[in-house]
C-alpha cells in the first residue's frame, strides 16, 4: 500500500514537472517520472492480486514510453539544431 501512495506522489510530481518546466528536455524527463508513477500503480494493482496480467501491461507500457521518449528527444534535438529553441513557448510562428 505504501507503493500506492508513492505512485500517486510520483504522478503528481511528474505532472507538476510537465506543466511547469519550461525546457523541453526537462519536460521529457518529467514525462518519464510520471510514467514511472503510472507503471508503479500497475505494479500495486498486480501485487494486490498476485496477477501477472498488469505486469505484462507494464512491460508493454515501458516499451511504448521509451519509444515516445526517443521520438520526443529527436524532435527536441532537431528543433534545437534548426532554430536553437529549447522550449515550446509560442513565438513568431503565428503570423
Amino acid at each position: 500500500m505504501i507503493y500506492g501512495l508513492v505512485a500517486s506522489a510520483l504522478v503528481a510530481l511528474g505532472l507538476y514537472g510537465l506543466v511547469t518546466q519550461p525546457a523541453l528536455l526537462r519536460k521529457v524527463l518529467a514525462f518519464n517520472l510520471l510514467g514511472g508513477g503510472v507503471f508503479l500503480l500497475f505494479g500495486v494493482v498486480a501485487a494486490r492480486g498476485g496477477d501477472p496480467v498488469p505486469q505484462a501491461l507494464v512491460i508493454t507500457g515501458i516499451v511504448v514510453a521509451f519509444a515516445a521518449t526517443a521520438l520526443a528527444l529527436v524532435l527536441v534535438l532537431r528543433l534545437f539544431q534548426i532554430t536553437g529553441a529549447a522550449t515550446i513557448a509560442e513565438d513568431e510562428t503565428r503570423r
Partner: protein
Amino acid sequence: MEATPGGFLLVLILVAPVTGLLIGFAQGGRAAERIALWAAPLGVTMAMVLLAGVLHAQAPIVAFVGGWAPPLGLALRADGLAAAMLMTTAVIIAAITLFARADYTTLPGAPEARAPLAFWCFLLALWAALNAAFLGGDLFNLFVALEMLTFGALALACLDGRATQFKAELRYLLFALIGSVFYLLGTALLYGAYGTLDILLLSRTARSDAPTIVAASLMTVGLLGKMALFPLHLWLPAAHAGAPPAASALLSGLVVKASYVLLLRLWFWVMPAALLLAVAPILALLGAAAILFGSLVALRQARLKLLVAYSTVAQIGYLFLMFPLVAGSAAEVAERAWTGGALQAISHAFAKAAMFLAAGVIARGMGHDRIAGLHGAARVAPLSVLAFGLAGLSLMGIPPSGGFTAKWLLLQSALYAGQWWWALVIVAGGLLTGGYVFRVLSAAMRAPSPDFMPAAPVDARQERVALGLAIISVVLGLLPLAAFGLVLIGR
C-alpha cells in the same frame, strides 16, 4: 458475448495494413507506394464486406484474438459505429492515396527519398492504428492503438521538415503523451477495481465507486486532450495547419475521431449511467465553448490552413453536444442524438479532409495561403474552390449535406429533450461557420489583378479527389436515414 463468424475479417482488416507497412518499410519507398496503392481498394472492399456483414447480422461481429475469451484474452468487436468509421477511414485513405501520388511518387530507378517512404509507410501505419482503435474491445489494447496513432500522426505532420512544424509537433506530442498517461492511469485503476479491461465485461460490472470515478475523469480528460477539445486545443491549429495537405486531411478528418470513438465506448459502454449523467453537461458545455470560440477565432485567421484548422476545433465541439442528449433521454431521442453525433463525426471527416486537400491545392496554386490574397483562386483551382464550398456547406449544416442531417438530428433531439440551449449553440455555430467559409469563398471568387500569375500548375487529379470527398460529405445527407440505423447496431 461469444465470438461470431466472420471474425477473421476483423483480424485481416487490422493485420493487412500492418503487414503492408512492415514490408513496405523493409523494401523501400517505391514498394511502400505500390503496396499502399494496392491496399487502398483492398481496404475499401474489406470495410464494405464488414459493413455488409454487420448490417446483415444486425449485430456486432466479434473475434477473440488467439481464441482466448476476455477477461483473459482480447476481443475485437465491430459494431455499427465501428463498421461505419472503418468504412469512412477506408474511403478517405483511398482518396488520399490517389491525392498523394502527385506529391510522393518514386519513379522507377530513382533513389529512395525520405518523404515518400515516410509518407506511404505512415499512411498504412495510420490506417492500421485507426482500424485498431475502432475495433479494439480492450481498454489497454486501445491505449496501444492510440499511441500508434500519435506516432504516425506526428511523423506525417513533420514530413515537410520545417522548423516551425517541429515546435508545433512537440506541443502535440507532449500534450498527447499527457493524455496517454492520464488514460493509462485510469486503465490501471479500472483493472485494479474489476480485474478486466474488456469493454463489454466492464459494462456489466462497473460501479460508481472512488476508483471508477477517478479513472473515468482521468481517462476522459486524457482523451479530450488528444482530441483537442477546447480549452485543450493548444496543439491542434499549428500542428494541423502546418502539415502537408494529405497529412492534414488525415489528422483533422480521422485521427481525432479515434479518440472520440474511444470516449464514446468509455461513456456509453463502460461507465455507469449515474456518472454519465453528471459528466455529460460538462462535456457538452465544453463542446459549446469549442463551437463558439473555435468559429470566432477561425473568422479572424489570416491564413487559409489555420482557418481550416480552427474550424476543426469548432467542429469537434459538435461531437460533444450529443452526450447530454443521449444520456438520460427516452430511447427514441437518444437514438436520434446518437445517430446525429456519429453522422457528425463521419460527415466532418469527409468535409474536413476535402477542405484540407482543397486548401492545399489552392495554396500551392497561389503560392501562399493568405486569405486576403486569394483573389483569382477560383480561376487557378476552380474545382478546389468548389470542393471547399461544398465541404463548407456540410460544415455549416446546409441541406442536403451530411452535416445538415447530423445537425438536424442533434437539433431535434435537443428540443425533444427539452434542452433548447444546445440548439441555440448549433445554429449559432452554423452561422459563424457560414461566416468563415464565405470569407474564403468570396476572396477566392474575386477576379485577380491583371498581372496575376499562378505560382504553380494545379494537378487536376488532386482537385478531383478533393471534390470527390466534398461531394461525399454532401451526398451523405441524401442517404435515407435508415442507412444510419447502422450506427445503432450494438449500441
